[in-house]
C-alpha cells in the first residue's frame, strides 16, 4: 500500500545541514497499522509529512497504492494524494462547525459530490466516531477528545487509501489518552484503512500498531511486530526507549560451555549469571526492566539471581510503589506492591528474571572506552 524507499531530507541549521531523515525505507501492507516510533527530533514527523506531500524528500521515492507520488523527477502535490491526515493539533477550523469541518474534503472534491451524498457520508462518519448529535456544534466549543474525533472523521470521510496520524494522542490528558487509544484502535480496524502514524510514546505504538519502526537520528534502527521489538530489542537505544529500563554497566568474567556468562557489575561487586553471546573480557550494558525485578526484604534462596541494595527513594503511585534502590553506585528503578516494611534506607534484595535480561556490547562509561576489561 505504502512503499518508502531510501527517503532522505536535511534541514539547514546554524552549523550546516542536518540530516533529519537519512535513507529510510519501509513498506506498509494493505489494512495494516504502522507506527514510526522515536524520540523528538528523530525525523519521524518529517517522514510522515513527506508521505503526505507537505514536505518533499531530497532523495528516495514514495509510492501510495502502487502510484509513485514522489521521486527524483516527480512530485504529486498534497491535494492530489489519496490520503487523510490527523494533525497533532487536530487543526479543526474554528470558523466552521463540526459538520462543515467534516464535510470539507467532500466539498472540495472534483468532480463535485452531490449535496445529499455529502450529508449522508458526513453523518455516517460522525456516527462512526460518536459525534452525530453534535454536528452543528461550533468547533470552538469542543473538548480535546471531541476535537480528536472530528479530526479523525474529517480524515476518513473521503475514504482515503492511506490514513496518516501525527502524534494523534499527545494533545490529550493522560486519562483521556487511554480511552481514546482503545477507541482509535477499534476504529482503525473497523474501517480497515491502512494507517501510518508517528508517536514518541512506546505504549501508543506497541498497543495500536501491527508493525513498529523505531527511529533514531533519521534512521530506522529496528522494525518488527510490537511484541518482537519489546522482547528482543536489537540495540541498547531500542531497549531503553521501549522499556524505561535500568541500564547497568559491567564486564563478562567467564563463560561456560552452555553459553552462560557471569557478569561483574561495576561498583557494587554484584554478579549476574545468564545466557549471553559476549566473550569474557567484553564490556557490556545490562538492561533490566522494572517489571522484571522483584523486591524482597530477605535474601532469595538462589542468590546468583539477586542483588542487594538499600532503598534510596520511593514514589507512591496508588496500588504500586516505584522504588529507587541503591545497589552500590547505581540506582535501579523497581516497581513493587506497597509494603509497610520497605521504607527509606531499608536493606533489600532484588530478584531478577534472568530470561528477560538483555545484554549489549559497549562501554557506556568513559572509563572503559576500549570495550575490554581486565578479568
Amino acid at each position, binding site marked *: 500500500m505504502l512503499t518508502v524507499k531510501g527517503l532522505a531530507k536535511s534541514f539547514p541549521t546554524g552549523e550546516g545541514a542536518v540530516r533529519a531523515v537519512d535513507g529510510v525505507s519501509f513498506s506498509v501492507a494493505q489494512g495494516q497499522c504502522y507506527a514510526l516510533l522515536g524520540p523528538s527530533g528523530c525525523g519521524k514527523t518529517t517522514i510522515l509529512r513527506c508521505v503526505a506531500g507537505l514536505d*518533499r524528500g531530497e532523495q528516495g521515492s514514495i509510492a501510495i497504492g502502487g502510484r509513485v507520488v514522489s521521486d527524483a523527477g516527480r512530485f504529486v502535490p498534497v*491535494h492530489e494524494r489519496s*490520503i487523510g491526515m490527523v494533525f497533532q493539533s487536530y487543526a479543526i*477550523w474554528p*470558523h466552521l462547525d463540526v459538520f462543515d469541518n467534516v464535510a*470539507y474534503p467532500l*466539498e472540495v472534491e472534483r468532480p463535485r459530490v452531490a449535496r445529499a451524498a455529502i450529508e449522508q457520508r458526513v453523518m455516517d462518519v460522525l456516527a462512526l466516531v460518536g459525534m452525530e448529535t453534535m454536528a452543528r456544534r461550533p468547533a470552538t466549543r469542543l473538548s480535546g477528545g471531541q476535537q480528536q474525533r472530528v479530526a479523525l472523521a474529517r480524515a476518513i470521510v473521503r475514504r482515503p487509501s492511506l490514513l496518516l496520524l501525527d502524534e494523534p494522542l499527545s494533545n490529550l490528558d493522560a486519562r483521556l489518552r487511554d480511552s481514546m487509544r482503545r477507541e482509535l484502535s477499534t476504529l482503525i480496524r473497523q474501517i480497515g484503512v491502512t494507517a501510518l502514524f508517528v508517536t514518541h510514546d512506546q505504549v501508543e505504538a506497541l498497543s495500536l500498531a501491527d508493525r513498529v519502526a523505531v527511529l533514531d537520528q533519521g534512521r530506522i534502527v529496528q522494525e518488527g511486530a510490537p511484541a518482537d521489538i519489546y522482547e528482543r530489542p536489537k540495540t541498547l537505544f531500542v531497549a531503553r526507549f521501549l522499556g524505561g529500563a535500568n541500564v547497568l554497566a559491567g564486564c563478562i568474567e567467564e563463560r561456560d560451555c552452555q553459553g552462560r556468562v557471569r557478569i561483574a557489575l561495576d561498583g557494587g561487586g554484584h554478579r549476574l549469571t545468564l545466557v549471553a553471546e559476549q566473550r569474557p573480557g567484553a564490556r557490556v550494558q545490562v538492561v533490566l526492566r522494572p517489571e522484571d525485578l522483584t523486591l524482597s526484604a530477605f535474601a532469595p534462596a538462589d542468590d546468583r539471581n539477586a542483588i542487594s541494595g538499600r532503598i534510596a527513594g520511593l514514589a507512591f503511585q496508588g496500588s504500586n510503589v516505584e522504588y529507587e534502590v541503591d545497589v552500590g553506585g547505581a540506582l535501579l528503578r523497581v516497581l513493587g506492591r506497597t509494603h509497610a516494611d520497605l521504607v527509606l534506607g531499608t536493606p533489600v534484595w532484588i530478584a531478577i528474571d534472568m530470561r528477560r535480561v538483555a545484554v549489549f556490547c559497549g562501554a557506556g562509561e568513559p572509563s572503559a572506552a576500549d570495550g575490554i576489561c581486565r578479568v
Partner: protein
Amino acid sequence: MHKLDNLDLTAKLVLAVVTGAAIYLIAVPLAMLLFAAFRGPADYLPFEPGARWTLEHVQALFTDPVIYTRILPDTFIFVAGTVVVAFAIGFGLAWLVERTDLPAREIWFALILFPLLVPAPVLAIAWIFLMGPNAGWLNLAIRAALGLDGSGPINIFSMGGLILCQALASAPFIFLLLSATLRTMDPALEEASGASGASPLTTFGRVTLPVLLPGLLAPLILITLITAEQFELPLIIGLPAKINVFSYRIYFELNPLSSLPNYGAAAALSLPFVVLGVLLLMLYNRLIRRADSFVTMTGKGYRQRRLPLGAWRIPALALAALYVTLAAVLPAAVLLWTSFFGYALPLSATSADFSLEAYRQLFANRAFWLGLRNTFLVALASALIVTAIGGLLGWIISRSQIRFRHVLDFVSVLSIGIPAVIAGLGVMLLYLSLPIGLYGSVAILIIAYSYRFATTTRLARAGFLQIHKELEEASATSGARWLATLRRVLIPLMLPALSAGFILLFIVGVREFTIPLVLYSQDNVVLSVLLWQLFQSGQPAPSAALASIIVAVVLPVIFVARRTLARRTLAE
C-alpha cells in the same frame, strides 16, 4: 512550508501577479525618482526627448545655502520638538487609559482617536480658527480675560505653534502604539512595586518606565520618521510662518511661484529623504525584533489589574480632558460654529448671524460632489487593492520558503519610509512619462495611494502567526487546491485582521491630502484638497462647512475603528 515548486499553477500565478503588483506600485515610482534626479535640464521629464544625464541637481543640493541655513535647521527643530511633545502626550494618555483605573476609559479611547481619523487640513484650519493671532477664539478669550490689547498672546504661525499642532495631531498615533505595549505588560511587575510600598507615581518612574524602555525606542523611531514625512501642517500652518521643511520644499520645487516645475531638483531633494527613511526603518525593524524578545512582554492576555489612581484621579482626568478639548472638542466646535455663524463669536452672536449660506454655496459647487465621490472611490479602491496585495504578501512572507520573500518583506516595509509627497512625485514622473493618459485621472490617485503595504502586510503576518500552520495543511490533506484553501480557510480565518487593515487603509485614504494635491487636476479633486482651496481663497464659512461635513462622516467610523482596530491589532 511551501517551496515554489510545491505550489500548484494557480498559486504560482496569483503570487506572481501579487509580487509584480507590489513591485510596480512601490519600486517603479521610486526608480523614476532616481532617474529624474540625474536627468536634466530642470523642467524636462527624465525620458523626454532632449533630456540628458546630469549631476546638476545633486550638485545644487549640496551647494544651495538655503538648505543648510533654513531647511535643515527648520526640519530638525520641527521634528525634534514634535516628537518630544507628542511622545509625552501619547505615552501619558496610553498609560492612563491602559494601566490605571481612569474613569470612562472607553470614551477617552474613542475621543483620543479623533485627530487620527480626520484629514490634517481639517485640524489645521480648526486650529487656525482657534489660535490665529488676531481672531483666534483662544486668543480672544485670553485677551478678554486679562484685559490685553493687540494680537496674541498665542501665535499659531510660529515654530512653537506648528510643533504644538503637529504634536496634538500625532499624539494619538503614539497612543495606539504604546497602548498595545502597555496592555501586554505583566501587571504583576507594577503590583509588586505597589506591594513594596511604592506610590503610583514612584511605581511609574521606578518600574513601568524602565521596564518599557526597550519597547519605547521602536515607536520613538517610527514617530520620528513619520513626523519628518509630514507635509500638511507645515504647508498650512508653517508656510505663513515662513517655516521651510524638507517635504514642503519638494512640493515647492514642483509648484514654484513663478517658473516651470523643476522635476530634477524635486527628485534630487527626495533622495536623501528616502535614504534616511530606509535607514531609520532598518533600525526600527531591528529594535522591534529585540523588543519582541524582551522577557516581560509575553503577549498573553493578562487579566487586567489596574493601578488605583486615588487622589491623582482628578489631575489625571484634567490632563486627558485638556488634550481631548484641544485636539477634538474645540476643533469640532469651532468648525461647526463657523460654518453657521462665520466670524461672529459665540457670546456676542445673535440669531441674525445664523446662516445656512455656507452649506448652500458648498452644495451648489460641482467640485464638492465630484470631490465627495472621488474621495470615497479612491479610498475604497486603494484600500481593497492594498488589503488584497498586502494580505497575500503576508502569506508569502510568513508561510512560504520562496527565496525572494525577504525582498518582498523589505519592499513592503519600505512603504512606511516613503513620504506621501515623494510617493506623489514618483507617480507623477511615471505617468507624465507613460503615454497612457492616466495623468490627471481618478485612477492615478488609486494607483498612487496603493503603496502603503506595510500595515496590511504586518497585520497579515501577525494574523498568520495566530493561525496554526496545520489548519492550512489540513485543507491540503483534505484534497483542496491552493485557491480553495485560500478562499475557504485562510480568508475566513484572516477576516478580522484583514478587515482591521482595510478600515485603517480606508481612513488613511479619506485623510489623504498630499498625494491628491501633488497630482491635482480639475477631475480628480478630493475633499481634503477642496477644503484647502476654499480656505486659501478666503472662504472661511464654506471651508468650515466642508470640514464639518467631513467630521460628521468620520465620527461614526471612530466607533467602528475603536472596536475593530484599537482592541485588536493596530500596533502590530
